[in-house]
């Protein structure tokens, strides 16, 4: 079973600052990491390979330093890694990103399953997975928390919904997004680390994947961020006073006054 895992490099913290001059995000000084949700996707890919054979390909799109997370993916069990990196890709929204990834996947060509994390920790959209699946013409199952069975040309999964989980069967090739409940990602092995050091991460430009230039980067993006700002957090914060009994007494009184209770 050949698997492609899509991963993204994200800032290691979500405590970001805004540069008041340029009104853009300040990213310097923050360590970059593999998007936490993507490490579950990678682990699931490696786990499936161990059960059914085949190979795991890690794929990312981003600036040259995103190579770091692809090496990490190799250290954790991926067999090969590709990075789509090109200045022309800057400013891509989810539509342009999913198109670009679809071109890279077409070039990799040989796969049964594409796995991604449920969303990224920076953008939080969760849209690239389903948009990519549609662009590739693949069936898509979101929020997978368990792969129950892999059969000939099909796969049975559990996916989380608001009030429980659904058991879903889909034909292969397919694409899924996974949630953290699916597994516990492993740490890189010593052998993996050694392999990651010497392995080649293949870097592709937009031309290498024969991308339609009108569908990538800013040109290919339908949406545009026009403003970023800090959320207006309502400050309330009245701490009750007195001994514990008195505080509870006051609270119950306030609740009664509010007529909710």
């Amino acid at each position, binding site marked *: 079973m050949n698997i492609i895992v899509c991963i993204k490099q994200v800032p290691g913290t*979500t*405590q*970001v600052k*805004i540069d008041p001059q340029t009104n853009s995000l300040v990213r310097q000084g923050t360590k970059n990491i593999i998007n936490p949700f993507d490490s579950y996707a990678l682990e699931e890919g490696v786990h499936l390979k161990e059960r059914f054979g085949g190979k795991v390909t890690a794929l990312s799109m981003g600036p040259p330093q995103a190579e770091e997370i692809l090496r990490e993916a190799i250290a954790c069990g991926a067999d090969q890694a590709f990075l789509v990196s090109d200045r022309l890709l800057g400013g891509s*929204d*989810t*539509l342009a990103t*999913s198109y670009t990834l679809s071109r890279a996947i077409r070039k990799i060509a040989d796969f049964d399953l594409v796995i991604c994390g449920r969303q990224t920790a920076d*953008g*939080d959209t969760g*849209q690239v*997975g*389903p*948009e990519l699946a549609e*662009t590739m013409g693949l*069936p*898509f*199952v*979101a*929020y997978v928390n368990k792969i129950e069975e892999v059969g000939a040309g099909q796969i049975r999964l559990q996916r*989380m*919904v*608001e*009030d*429980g*989980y*659904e*058991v*879903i*069967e*889909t*034909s292969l090739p*397919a694409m899924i997004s996974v*949630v*953290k409940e699916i597994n516990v990602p492993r740490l890189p092995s010593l052998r993996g680390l050694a392999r990651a050091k010497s392995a080649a991460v293949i870097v592709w430009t937009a031309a290498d994947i024969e991308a339609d230039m009108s569908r990538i980067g800013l040109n290919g*993006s*339908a*949406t*545009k961020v*026009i*403003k*970023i*700002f*800090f*959320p207006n*957090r*309502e400050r*309330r*914060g009245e*701490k009750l006073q007195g001994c*514990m009994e008195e*505080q*509870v007494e*006051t*609270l*119950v009184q*306030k*609740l009664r006054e509010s007529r*909710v*209770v």
Partner: protein
Amino acid sequence: MESNGYQGVWTFAEQRNGKLKRVSYEILARGRELADTLGTELTAVCFGHNISEVDQLIAHGADKVYLIDDPALAVNQEDLCAGELARLIRENKPEILLAGATSLGRAFIPRVAAILQTGLTADCTGLDIDAGKKLLLQTRPTFGGNMMATIICKDKRPQMATVRPRVFKKKAPDANRKGQIIKVDFKKEAVTSRTRLLNFVENITESIKLEDADIIVSGGRGLGKPENFKLIEELAEALGAAVGSSRPPVDEGWIPYSHQVGQTGKTVCPKLYFACGISGAVQHLAGMQSSEMIIAINSDPDAPIFDVATYGIVGDLFQVVPLLINKLKCE
């Protein structure tokens, strides 16, 4: 699709088991205001089988309802929903499409956007119209709720957004409102579903659903161990409340994910929210801070939850909660 000739605001009215979801009414309420600002029609699109109260969509603000009723659509097969919604949009050209940011909406609406090659903004908490340019201003939290971004879709149509549940308020129905329900045939041959729903397993452990509850009592890491959720359940019972959780107890397996409130769980907006032993990480606040009244019980006086709490009690929850239960039961 380019923007020429697109007109009208559409909302996707999501149903589950034949019943319309609350968020379907919430986006209808906001959609009505947007349509009025633009001076255009509001249309709800509804897919399913034997859906009750479709006329309620009119009573809640729609001028028109496109209804596709077919057994194949009963369980929201995403392949089919995506194909049918894209087809209707191509035929009727709305300028805006809103859908709930539910597990269904966030999984299949992006596919509709990809089919139509247009922009989509995820999980919006603010929707306005730029009157001069007639553009939809779509505001959403990003970076785990630490930042807000306002996004536009300038040239492509429709402008599409998924909308976080419980952000906009459902309006009271007006039974006298007039509207048109248009039954549309399901184009069976047009799309085939490659996925099949085999089974559904419900794992909400008690009867009151989090999304619908007026009062929610949530427990966090401060509970220390799974057995202590009993205390949360007792308080919930005394108040007639639903039980919620912050992320750590869910990660630890003390309570199922369906109880999780926050950025990667549910967004709730009850009249009263109790946070017991919850420190108030920004991801949790993102899911509950618009609650009308928030009560925090935590032993750490510096916990950020106290910043958003209407009333806070600094103290050991194992002491405070039993006292509270007692007091509520006595009265």
